[in-house]
C-alpha cells in the first residue's frame, strides 16, 4: 500500500484570526415572574420620580419654584369647588377615553384613532341636535343623539378593523390617518351649519340643561364610572374578554382553539369605537358645541395611559387620576408663573416618559458581569 501523503496545510490550516467574543459588562435577561410586591414598589418609585422630575423641570424654567408644582397641583384639585369639578371632568375624559381604547389594546390592535372616533361620535350627536325638529320631546332627542354617537363611533372604528381583519392592513397608521379625516369632517360640517364663521356652537336640543351646573360634570362622571365597571366585567368575566385576550397573545393559538379571529377583531374594535362615541356624545351634550379640538390630544394621552396601566382597569384608573392631577396642576402653575399653556404638555410627556423608562425594571433583570474586569487583569499578568 502506498503511503497516503497528507498535505499538512490542508489538515491544519493556519487559523483565521478571530476576535474573541468580548464579554459584556451589562447583561440583560427577561424577568420571568414578578411578585406583586415588587411591581407595586417599582410603580410607586416610578411615580414619585416622575413627579420630582416634573417639579425639577418647572424649577429649570422658573428657578425657585420647585415646591410650587406640588402646592399648585393640590390647590388646583381642592382649591375651590369650581377647580375640583374641573379636575373631575379632566379625570372623567381621560379615564373614559382610556377605558374606551382598552379592549382594542388588550387585543394588541393599536387603535390610535380614539380621538377621531370621539370626534365622529360627537359630530353625529351634534348633527342630530342641530337638525332635529324642536317639537321632538327632549328625552327622545337625547336617546337619538346617544345612539347616533355610538353608531358613528362604531362605524368609524370598524373601517380600519375590517381591513385589519381581512387584509392585515397596518392599523397604527390607518387609525392615525382616520383622526385627521374626522377633523376635516367636523370643520366641513361646521361650515355647513354656520357658513360665515364655521363654528358649530349654540346647540339647544338634547343638551344637558341642569339648574345646578355641577351636574354637568356629575352626569358624565357617572356614565364613565359605569363604563369602567362594564369594561372590568367584560374583560375579566366574559367569554368575549377571554377571546380577545387570546387573540392578543397569539393569533394562531386563537385560530386553533376555534376562535373566529376576524370576527373577534371586528367586534372588539367596534366596541372600542362605540365607547369613544359615548365620550363624544357626553362632551357635546355638556358643552352644546363641537369643534375639532374638543379632545386636544387626549386621545394620544389615553393610549399611553392604557399601555402604562398594563391594560388593567384598576391601574388605568390610578394613572388617569395622576395624569389629570398633573394636567390641571401644571396648567395652573404655568398660568400663575407665566410659562404659557404648553407647559402642561411637557409635564404630561415627561411624567409618562419617566414611567415608561421604569417599565424596564418590571420586564428585565440587569446583571453586572464583574468577571470582565478580572479577566483583563489576569491576561495582563500572563503577558
Amino acid at each position, binding site marked *: 500500500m502506498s503511503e497516503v501523503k497528507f498535505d499538512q496545510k490542508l489538515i491544519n490550516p493556519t487559523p483565521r484570526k478571530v476576535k474573541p467574543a468580548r464579554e459584556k459588562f451589562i447583561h*440583560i*435577561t*427577561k424577568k420571568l415572574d414578578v411578585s406583586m410586591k415588587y411591581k407595586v414598589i417599582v410603580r410607586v418609585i416610578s411615580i414619585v420620580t416622575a413627579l420630582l422630575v416634573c417639579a425639577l423641570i418647572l424649577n429649570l*424654567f422658573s428657578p425657585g419654584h420647585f415646591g410650587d408644582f406640588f402646592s399648585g397641583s393640590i390647590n388646583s384639585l381642592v382649591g375651590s369647588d369650581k377647580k375640583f369639578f374641573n379636575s373631575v371632568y379632566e379625570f372623567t375624559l381621560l379615564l373614559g377615553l382610556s377605558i374606551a381604547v382598552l379592549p382594542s389594546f388588550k387585543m394588541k390592535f*393599536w387603535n*390610535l384613532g380614539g380621538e377621531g372616533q370621539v370626534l365622529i361620535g360627537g359630530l353625529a350627536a351634534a348633527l342630530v341636535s342641530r337638525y332635529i325638529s324642536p317639537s321632538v320631546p327632549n328625552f327622545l332627542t337625547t336617546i337619538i343623539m346617544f345612539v347616533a354617537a355610538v353608531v358613528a363611533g362604531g362605524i368609524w372604528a370598524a373601517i380600519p378593523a375590517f*381591513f385589519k381583519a381581512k*387584509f*392585515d*392592513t*397596518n392599523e*397604527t*397608521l*390607518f387609525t*392615525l*390617518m*382616520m383622526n*385627521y*379625516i374626522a*377633523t*376635516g*369632517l367636523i*370643520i*366641513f*360640517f361646521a*361650515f*355647513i351649519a354656520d*357658513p360665515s364663521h*364655521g363654528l358649530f356652537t349654540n346647540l339647544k336640543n338634547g343638551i344637558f340643561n341642569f339648574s345646578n351646573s355641577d351636574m354637568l360634570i356629575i352626569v358624565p362622571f357617572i356614565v364613565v364610572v359605569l363604563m369602567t365597571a362594564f369594561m372590568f366585567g367584560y374583560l375579566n368575566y366574559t367569554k368575549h374578554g377571554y377571546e380577545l385576550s387570546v387573540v392578543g397573545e397569539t393569533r394562531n393559538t386563537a385560530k386553533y382553539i376555534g376562535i373566529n379571529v376576524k370576527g373577534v377583531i371586528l367586534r372588539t374594535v367596534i366596541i372600542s369605537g362605540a365607547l369613544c362615541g359615548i365620550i363624544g356624545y357626553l362632551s357635546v351634550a355638556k358643552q352644546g358645541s363641537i369643534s375639532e379640538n374638543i379632545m386636544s*390630544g387626549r386621545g*394620544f*394621552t389615553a*393610549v*399611553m395611559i392604557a*399601555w*402604562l396601566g398594563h391594560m388593567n382597569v384598576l391601574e388605568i384608573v390610578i394613572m388617569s387620576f395622576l395624569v389629570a392631577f398633573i394636567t390641571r396642576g401644571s396648567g395652573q402653575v404655568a398660568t400663575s408663573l*407665566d*410659562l*404659557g*399653556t*404648553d*407647559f*402642561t*404638555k*411637557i*409635564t*404630561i*410627556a*415627561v411624567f*409618562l*416618559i419617566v414611567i*415608561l*423608562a421604569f*417599565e*424596564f425594571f418590571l*420586564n*428585565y433583570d440587569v446583571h453586572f458581569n464583574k468577571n470582565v474586569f478580572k479577566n483583563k487583569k489576569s491576561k495582563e499578568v500572563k503577558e
Partner: protein
Amino acid sequence: MFVTLLKEALRLTPIFLFGSTGETLTEKSGHLNLGTPGILCMGVAGGMVGISIYDLIFGGFPTNFGGALALFLIVVFMAMLFGALSGLLFSFFCVSLRCNQNVMGLAYTTFGIGFYGLVFNSFESQGKGIFYFNEFCYTINTLFMKDAEATNAFEKLFLANGGLWYMSFIIAIVVAIILKRTRVGLNIRAVGENAGSADAAGINVSKYRYLTTIIGSAISALGGLYYFVEINIGLLEFGKIDTYGWLAVALVIFTLWKTDLGVLGAFLFAFLFKLPEIYGLPSAEFNMLFLYLPYFITILVLLATSIFDRKAGQAPGNLGITYFREER
C-alpha cells in the same frame, strides 16, 4: 396663476420631504418613530436657539456674506443637534430600555409640541418677540438666492429659493442611494426586515438602529427649521407644525418607504395642500375638506399595498417591533 401655484407648492415641499426622508431612514431600520411631529417642533426650537446664539456671539444681524454663512451653519447645526438628541433619547428608550415604540413616539410628540411653545414663550418674555427672528431668517433665505427679482418662470421656480430648499432634495436623493445601493443600506434594510436574522448574520442591530434613528431625526428636524425660516420667515403660527409632521409620517407610507419617490410625493402633498388656497374652490367648506385629502390618499395607498400584497411596497417586516435577542 399656475406658476404661482407651482411656486407655492414647491416652496412647501421641503417640509414634507425632510420629515419623510428622516422618518423613512428610521423606519427602514424597524423603528416606527411617531415622535416625528415632535421632532419637527424641536427643529423649530433649535432654529430659534441657533439664531439667538449667533446674536449673542456676533451681536446683531450679519452684514456680509461670511456672517450670513456662519448664521446659516449655526442654525442648521443647532436644529440638527436638537433633532439628533431627540433621536438619541428615542433610541435609548426603544433599543436599550426596550420600551414600546408607539408609546414613546406619542409621548415625544407631546413633549416636542410643549417644548417648542415653552422655548418661544421664554424668548417672548425676554423681549425677543415675534419680529425678533424675522430679519435673521430673511438673511438666511437670501444667502443662496441667485436673484430675489426673478424674471422668467424657471428662475422663479427653481433659483429663487433658500439654501435649505436645495438641501432637502439633495438629502432625499443621497439617502435613497445609500439605502438602495450600498452595503450600509443593505444592512439597514436587513435590520428592519428581520432583526433576528440580521443579528445572526453578524450585523450589530443596536448600532444600526441607534444610528439611523439619530441621523433620521436630525434630518426630520430640518423640516421644522425650514418651516420656521423659509416659510414663516421667523413668525410663529402656532398649531400648524405638528399637522405637517403627521403628513410627513403619512408620506412615508404614500411613497412606499422610498425617499426618491418622496420627492414626487412631497410635491404632490404640497400641491394638494396649496390648490384650494390659490385657486379657491366654489365654497369655503369644500376648501376645508380639501386640505385633508392627503390623509385620505395615504389611506388608499395603505389599503392598496396591503390588498395587493406585493413584497416591494410593504412596510419593513419588523417595523415597530423592539428587538430582544433572548426572546423567542
